[in-house]
C-alpha cells in the first residue's frame, strides 16, 4: 500500500496544483507540507473510499463526511480569514507573495452533535423557471434542472451542491 501511495503523491500533487491555479486557488508553496497532505488524502481514499481531510477524523461514511472531502466546505472562508485552510494545503495569494509559512488555525467545522446530516432538498415552489444550485465548496451558482456533474470552478463533485433557490 505504501508503494502504491508513494507513486501517486507526485501525480496527485501536480494535478491538484494545476486545478487550483486554473481556478484562482493556490497550493501551499511548502512542497513538503503539501505533499505530506497529499499522501494523507491518498491514504484516506484507500481506507475510506474518499479523500477526507488528513487533519480531521473521518467516519468512513462519505455522506457524513462530505463537508470534509478535500477541498472541504471550509477552505474558502479559512483561506480568506487566515490565509490558509485548516490542514494548510491551500493558501491565499498574499501568503504566496509574502512567502510566509502557514500557521495552524482554529477548527471551523462544528462538533458532531451540532452537525446535522445533510438533509434532502425539499421540493419548494419557486417563481423562477429553473432552480439555482450552489457549490458548497466555492459558492458557484448555476440555474439548471440539476447540479452539474463537476463544479466548473473548483471541480467539486455533484454531491457537494445544494439547492440555493
Amino acid at each position, binding site marked *: 500500500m505504501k508503494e502504491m501511495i508513494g507513486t501517486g503523491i507526485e501525480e496527485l500533487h501536480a494535478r491538484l496544483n494545476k486545478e487550483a491555479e486554473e481556478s484562482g486557488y493556490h497550493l501551499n508553496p511548502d512542497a513538503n*507540507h503539501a505533499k*505530506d*497532505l497529499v*499522501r*494523507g488524502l491518498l*491514504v*484516506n481514499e484507500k481506507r475510506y473510499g474518499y479523500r477526507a481531510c*488528513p*487533519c*480531521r*477524523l*473521518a467516519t468512513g461514511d462519505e455522506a457524513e463526511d462530505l463537508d470534509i472531502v478535500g477541498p472541504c466546505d471550509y477552505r474558502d472562508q479559512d483561506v480568506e480569514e487566515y490565509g490558509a485552510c485548516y*490542514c*494548510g494545503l491551500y493558501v491565499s495569494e498574499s501568503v504566496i507573495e509574502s512567502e510566509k509559512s502557514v500557521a*495552524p*488555525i*482554529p*477548527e471551523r467545522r462544528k*462538533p*458532531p452533535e451540532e452537525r446535522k446530516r445533510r438533509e434532502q432538498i425539499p421540493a419548494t415552489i419557486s417563481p423562477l423557471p429553473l432552480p439555482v444550485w450552489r457549490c458548497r465548496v466555492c459558492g458557484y451558482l448555476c440555474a439548471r434542472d440539476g447540479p452539474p456533474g463537476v463544479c466548473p470552478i473548483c471541480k467539486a463533485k455533484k454531491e457537494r451542491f445544494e439547492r440555493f433557490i
Partner: protein
Amino acid sequence: MTMMYIEGEDKGKIVLYALSTCVWCKKTKKLLTELSVDFHYVYVDLLEEGEIEKVLDEMKHHNPVCSFPTLVIDDKTCIVGYNEGMREALGK
C-alpha cells in the same frame, strides 16, 4: 487501547491524541521529541471502531470539539493544535 510511548525527561503525564495522516500532529510529535520529554501518543484513526468512541469520549473532557492534535498534560492542561505554547507549558 494501546498508547505508544516515547521515553524522555519526566515532565508529568503527557498524552498526545493524534491522527496518522495529520501534518500538524506530526509537527507536534516532532516538537515533543525534540524537547525530549516523556510522552504517550495514540493515532486515533488507526484504532478499532469501538476504541475510537472511547478515546473521543476521553478527549471531549479536555477538548469538546475533538480536533487534532490534542495534547493533555497531567489530565488538566490541554493544548489544541500545533502550538509553540507547549514549550512553555512543559517548562522548556
